[in-house]
């Protein structure tokens, strides 16, 4: 075995891989959330729909998103593998246990499995549809002098080769943009109370997974010191355990109750 495989397959190395992929996914969560905040804009989905086109066409982002898919799968299956190996370290269990650690730190694999199921559902709801299914198109017309944007749905069977068709009408002083209406798909999907509940529950799993996971990643990398560990733990609880899950859960709730 080379020194690298030896290091990465040791008990510490295995956790380092979990930590690095986990921290990458944490960064992704922040970016994904800030992008999706455009769903809250009251502009007929203009900002969100053009953002979706940008995210799926800009080459650098495309590369990062393939990395992201890979890291999600790697983090999930490597984590399950570690859990399986760790179970083997105690073949006979205790009759009574009063474990002194937090319940979520002990159940990262269960929380993670819930999240994996969630990700599959989430991607087939939106990502798959956006990429592979026929979606309605929407046309946005911007008055160039006032910046005012109006929108109108395109005809049922309309389709175009490019993801975003942009034209200028010099005479009328307008800019016309035609894109797939993912915004409509989102707002339609979240009329389903079952789906909304599933999304909100999954965000609880996310919260507990990250309260332990974010700070645990630093410990696995050996980054622990009274100077900064309290800050890392604070971020773990307040940002990843509370703010981010609330931000995500707000989206299905917003569409269900206000749209």
């Amino acid at each position, binding site marked *: 075995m080379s020194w690298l495989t030896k290091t990465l397959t040791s008990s510490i190395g295995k*956790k380092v891989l979990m930590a690095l992929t986990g921290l990458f996914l944490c960064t992704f969560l922040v970016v994904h959330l800030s992008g999706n905040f455009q769903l809250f804009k009251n502009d007929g989905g203009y900002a969100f729909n053009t953002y979706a086109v940008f995210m799926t066409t800009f080459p650098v982002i495309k590369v990062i998103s393939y990395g992201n898919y890979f890291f999600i799968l790697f983090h999930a299956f490597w984590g399950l593998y570690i859990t399986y190996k*760790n179970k083997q*370290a105690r073949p006979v269990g*205790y009759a*009574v246990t009063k474990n002194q*650690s937090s319940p979520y730190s002990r159940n990262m694999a269960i929380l993670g499995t819930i999240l994996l199921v969630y990700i599959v559902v989430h991607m087939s709801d939106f990502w798959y549809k956006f990429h592979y299914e026929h979606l309605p198109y929407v046309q946005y017309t911007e008055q160039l002098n006032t910046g005012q944007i109006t929108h109108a749905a395109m005809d049922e069977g309309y389709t175009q080769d490019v993801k975003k068709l942009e034209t200028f009408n010099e005479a009328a002083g307008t800019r016309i943009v035609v894109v797939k209406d993912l915004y409509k798909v989102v707002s339609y999907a979240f009329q389903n109370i079952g789906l909304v509940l599933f999304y909100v529950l999954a965000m609880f799993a996310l919260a507990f997974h990250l309260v*332990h996971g974010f700070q645990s990643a630093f410990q696995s*990398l*050996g980054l622990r010191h009274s100077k900064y560990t309290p800050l890392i733990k604070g971020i773990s609880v307040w940002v990843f355990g509370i703010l981010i899950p609330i931000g995500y859960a707000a989206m299905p709730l917003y569409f269900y109750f206000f749209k």
Partner: protein
Amino acid sequence: MSNENMTIHLKVWKQKNTGSKGHLEDYTVNNVSPDMSFLEMFDVLNEELIHENKEPIAFDHDCREGICGMCSMYINGRPHGPLEGVTTCQLHMRSFKDGDTIVVEPWRAAAFPVIKDLVVDRTAFDRIIASGGYVSINTGNAQDANNLPIGKERADLAFAAAACIGCGACVAACKNASAMLFVSAKVSQLALLPQGEPERQSRALSMVAQMDAEGFGSCTNTGACSAECPKEISLDNIARLNREFLGASLSKPE
């Protein structure tokens, strides 16, 4: 605190040998003084069993003053019982109430096979120590004090890590039966001091390799180990071991 003697019900793990299947067996001990240690209660019970021509319960013990780490008992779901920072031998019956039922199990880990009843084989720890937990420099006679300049903070950290008695409660408490707290204490006490410097990198690498070979699980930072450690070894040591190991993997001259 009551001085009345108590009746204690026990459910104790009985297992003939490593290969056999064990079970919990019920015992009742009368006249238990609150001032007895947990082990003394077992002595009383065993005396009675011997008088009745029954087989006594096998359990490990040696110093009975909290420094040898032999008295491995998993009491009511916690290694060394309900108190913090205390070994089984220093746990007293005043921590229990008259009529209590106490479940006593051995440490459970693939790397700590049960030899008999509550006695487990902890030689996996010895093999980990033998793989690197030593200094091979000739230390000569005892040095004059302050011959080696070591800062107070460092000395304190090394001392705190050296308090580990190798009892295995960390493994018993951990949901992954991980030995990281033990190994991290043993690596830290030497990594922090100049005497440990010559073998610092090879020590971290070989002790972790031996730990893995023994079949302990990998650490998931739940912190149950440190919460149950009778010597209150800090999780800081685990972070240090991670640094030592990763640093050595990346930079040890071949």
